[in-house]
């Protein structure tokens, strides 16, 4: 007997403590509002609101927030059910409650003809998050409805378009039925070899934080345009399960600018002979890329390239011939580098390539492609054939190091000098620390 009492006492105590510690406000009241039972958190939430801190009547305590609560209860004629379900109540309290909740959620359940049960919770944080989300959605909607030269797309984990907005219609001419659920590959011309690289781009975006590609894209009516396409992950990172990863794709039309503006832009940013970015344009582009890299640490390489025969050709055949060779070199570079690399002509006969995400091995492979390409072809100029080879110096920055353009250029320059001095048609990699050139890597 004693044991039974002790056990039930123990149970009662455990229940009491359970209710004391419940992280949600619970209360039971009579139909007239008289509070029979109320747990500590409910009292916590109500006390600052109730006149004189009086918690004897529900309607009085909540009178400031829901003045017609009693009428609502009486208007609820069913024998049992939810009178209020998660009603959000903004709280405007006296200054001393400034650290208290700003929004409460009230649910009121009619238990029977005599009893009401109330659940009260502080939902301030949830409400704030919902507000922020609504604002972001509105902001994005505004953006998507205004931009004319860009299309903003959201892709799922395999590159299918998740939703439609006005920008897609304006740039590509696709309606919702035309793109939603389809792979972003459909935006490429059918004969475009980069069409199948979408998965690789998504993987690159996961790895480097972004993936940039330039190429042809196709509109719904079959017409093409040059586009710059940037993919960035929308999801939280490697911790997101693969099936839940989403990406943003921003497609920028780069080929349809009016002729005059285009010509102006070209003359300001491009080298007149080769059409590559000039020194200023290259430095601007490189600086912007380095800023991106500051946020996602991964290797970076820079290569300096010099035409081996340029001085000799200029002396023997004149500047026009040299220009032909320069254009040949530029074409070789364009054909060898990757979509994410930045090219420029920064000196009389010096070319530069910035290779983000490339370690020394990758950069060497790219440069070797160039060297092989040049060896395989000659330059034709006024009936004469010129052999044209190049030397390359490569400097690489390890992952996590702060990118310093000047340092990279200096080391690459040293390596280039070494390559040229050793007879040309070769690439040399600078050592990381001392800047001294390594043994040359020959085709």
């Amino acid at each position, binding site marked *: 007997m004693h044991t039974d009492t002790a056990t039930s006492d123990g149970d009662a105590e455990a229940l*009491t403590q359970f209710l*004391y510690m419940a992280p949600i406000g619970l209360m039971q009241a009579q139909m007239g509002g008289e509070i029979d039972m109320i*747990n500590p958190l409910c009292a916590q939430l109500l006390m600052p609101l109730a006149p004189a801190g009086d918690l*004897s009547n529900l309607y009085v305590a909540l009178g400031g927030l829901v003045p017609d609560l009693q009428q609502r209860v009486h208007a609820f004629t069913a024998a049992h059910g939810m009178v209020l379900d998660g009603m959000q109540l903004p709280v405007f309290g006296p200054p001393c409650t400034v650290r208290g909740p700003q929004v409460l959620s009230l649910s009121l359940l009619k238990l029977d003809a005599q009893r009401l049960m109330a659940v009260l919770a502080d939902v301030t944080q949830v409400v704030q998050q919902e507000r922020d989300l609504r604002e972001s959605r509105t902001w994005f909607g505004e953006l998507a409805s205004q931009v004319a030269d860009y299309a903003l797309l959201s892709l799922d984990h395999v590159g299918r378009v998740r939703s439609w907005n006005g920008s897609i219609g304006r740039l590509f001419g696709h309606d919702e039925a035309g793109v939603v659920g389809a792979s972003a590959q459909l935006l490429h011309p059918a004969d475009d070899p980069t069409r199948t690289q979408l998965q690789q781009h998504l993987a690159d975006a996961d790895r480097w934080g972004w993936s940039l590609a330039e190429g042809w894209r196709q509109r719904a009516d079959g017409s093409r345009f040059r586009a710059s396409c940037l993919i960035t992950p929308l999801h939280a990172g490697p911790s997101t399960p693969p099936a839940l990863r989403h990406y943003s794709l921003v497609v920028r039309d780069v080929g349809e600018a009016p002729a005059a503006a285009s010509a102006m832009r070209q003359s300001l940013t491009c080298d007149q002979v080769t059409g590559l970015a000039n020194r200023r344009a290259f430095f601007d582009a490189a600086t912007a890329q380095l800023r991106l890299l500051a946020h996602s640490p991964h290797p970076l390489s820079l290569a300096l390239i010099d035409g081996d025969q340029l001085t000799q050709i200029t002396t023997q055949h004149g500047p026009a011939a040299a220009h032909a060779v320069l254009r040949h070199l530029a074409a070789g570079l364009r054909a060898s580098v990757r979509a994410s690399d930045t090219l420029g002509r920064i000196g009389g006969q010096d070319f530069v390539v910035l290779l983000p995400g490339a370690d020394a091995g990758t950069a060497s492979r790219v440069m070797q492609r160039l060297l092989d390409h040049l060896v395989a072809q000659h330059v034709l100029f006024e009936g004469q054939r010129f052999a044209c080879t190049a030397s390359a110096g490569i400097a690489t920055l390890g992952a996590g190091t702060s990118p310093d353009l000047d340092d990279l250029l200096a080391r690459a320059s040293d390596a280039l000098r070494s390559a040229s001095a050793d007879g040309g048609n070769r690439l040399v990699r600078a050592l990381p620390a001392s800047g001294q050139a390594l043994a040359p890597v020959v085709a």
Partner: protein
Amino acid sequence: MQTSLHTTFSDPDLLDVLPHLAAAELDELSFGVIGFGKDTVVQRYNATESRIAGLSPERVLGHPLFTVVAPCMNNFLVAQRFEDAAAAGERLDVTVDYVLTLRMRPIKVKLRLLAAADAAQRYVLVHRTT
């Protein structure tokens, strides 16, 4: 024994007297006594308070007062006052009207908040007014 008979809720010297009372003497008092230290862990809990709240001492001793034992006191009226006094290195002695949800009933009480300047000895005293 003599001490507790004359010791009342409003006794001005209470903060000096309480630390020297034995557990049995604390139990004789007509008001609830919860004693805790700087870390807010409950060190003393008398029989009166146990009866009022419906919790045996084992459930309370050794647990943090404001988060586990009496979450309804975790606000600017009670817990904050102790924190402010401790931060200022001041002695605390205030009495506030309060409503405690003892055994889930709203019970009007007076709470007396006592704390030594070094916050090593702190008390909440509970006096039922209804």
